[in-house]
């Protein structure tokens, strides 16, 4: 029926492709959260050079197109490392994709963390200081619990954005779902049903996730 049965015929490789997307998503999200948190800490630090370096890193990484970073890490970084190491290195495409998307998202995550921490009213911190609490305790007990709740919806939607971005990784030969779809299109010569079906499937997946996050966001604001 309109060629949509092809999705069933190729279900196994499509499923494997989707798993690769999820793998890249999970790995790069973790990397992005860790690097983003480090960058945020640097950005808020009292040490001036550290603060400047973190600000510069965030600014640059947020200005780099995803695709440029993907190609740069996949093709340039191994060459540079080979020169340092003195022997020829290559990067696995999945590793490159994880690094690139992890760095891209670290820039966004860092800004979200910072905004969340800034959104905690200064008066709450002053009140804790007035009670004699130490700065780490204030951070752990007063600032972070509030900040995390404030930034959770934004983090969720950024993660959904990251999941959308994982569809780019086929350009550096990661065998993800788009890679498989493109192969099937070449084999079957039927772009209309294949691309339309893929667009519809992703639309429903992302829309579902977005509305889930939206509902969770409303609930956390009401709480």
């Amino acid at each position, binding site marked *: 029926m309109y060629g949509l049965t092809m999705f069933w015929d190729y279900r196994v490789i499509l499923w494997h492709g989707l798993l690769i997307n999820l793998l890249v998503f999970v790995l790069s999200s973790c990397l992005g959260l860790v690097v983003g948190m480090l960058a945020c800490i640097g950005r808020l630090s009292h040490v001036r050079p550290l603060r400047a370096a973190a600000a510069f890193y965030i600014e*640059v990484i947020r200005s780099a197109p995803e695709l440029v970073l993907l190609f740069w890490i996949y*093709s*340039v970084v191994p060459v540079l490392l080979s020169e340092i190491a003195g022997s020829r290195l290559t990067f696995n495409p999945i590793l490159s994709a994880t690094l690139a998307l992890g760095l891209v998202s670290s820039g966004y995550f860092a800004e979200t963390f910072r905004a969340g921490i800034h959104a905690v009213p200064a008066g709450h911190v002053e009140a804790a200081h007035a009670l004699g609490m130490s700065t780490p305790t204030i951070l752990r007990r007063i600032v972070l619990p509030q900040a995390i709740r404030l930034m959770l919806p934004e983090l969720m939607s950024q993660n959904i954005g990251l999941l959308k971005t994982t569809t780019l990784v086929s350009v550096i030969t990661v065998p993800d779902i788009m890679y498989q779809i493109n192969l099937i299109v070449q084999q079957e010569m039927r772009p*209309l049903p294949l*691309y339309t079906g893929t667009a519809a499937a*992703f639309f429903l997946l992302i829309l579902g996730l977005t509305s889930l996050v939206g509902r969770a966001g409303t609930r956390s604001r009401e709480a």
Partner: protein
Amino acid sequence: MGFWTRTLLADAGPLWNGLYVTLSISVMAFVVAASVGLGICILRGYLPALRPIFAAYIAFCRNTPIFIQLLWVAYAWYDLLGWPKEVFTAAWVALALQSSGYLAETFRAGIDSVPLGHVEAALALGISRLSIWRRIILPQMLLTIAPSLMNQFIVIIKCSTLVSVIAVPDLMFQALRLTGIWGDPVPIMSFVAVIFIAVIMALSALSKHLADLTHARLQS
């Protein structure tokens, strides 16, 4: 160092052309997306019956990965409609499709940010609906959303790198092609990355500046 100089001199032409293609596609996509987005935003108010259709359109644009939209427009639309015939057209159509959904929402937020009282004051003076749109609502809304518009333009430039995949000769395409010719990705890829980062950083600085200006103007 010699490597770099050689790259810059020998390949300045193609890279320059590539940047030109990147920017033309982005500007084209932005203008179309802004027009469609504004049209949807205004029509939605006047045609309540069509609201579900507009909502579905916006949801589709925003919730589908741009790479799929690009391939869908370039190959599936072509298969069905025989259009767009040129990859250049497919490129800006796909980018505009994605952004029109985001911009429709941006415009809506902009209109909502104009206080009803400002419209009532104009009505009370006998100013016509059309003049109110043109002179009171649009200018205020544009001031408010100027930074968001600029950010969407930046998003379009970033996404435009994808069009190299459907063989549009943009800056990214030239970088990949020259990498193949030189057999060495380091200078070309790094140089192109620097160009993109510089262009986008300049635009976001401009966007921040705009936001400060508007904030000073509209705060009350």
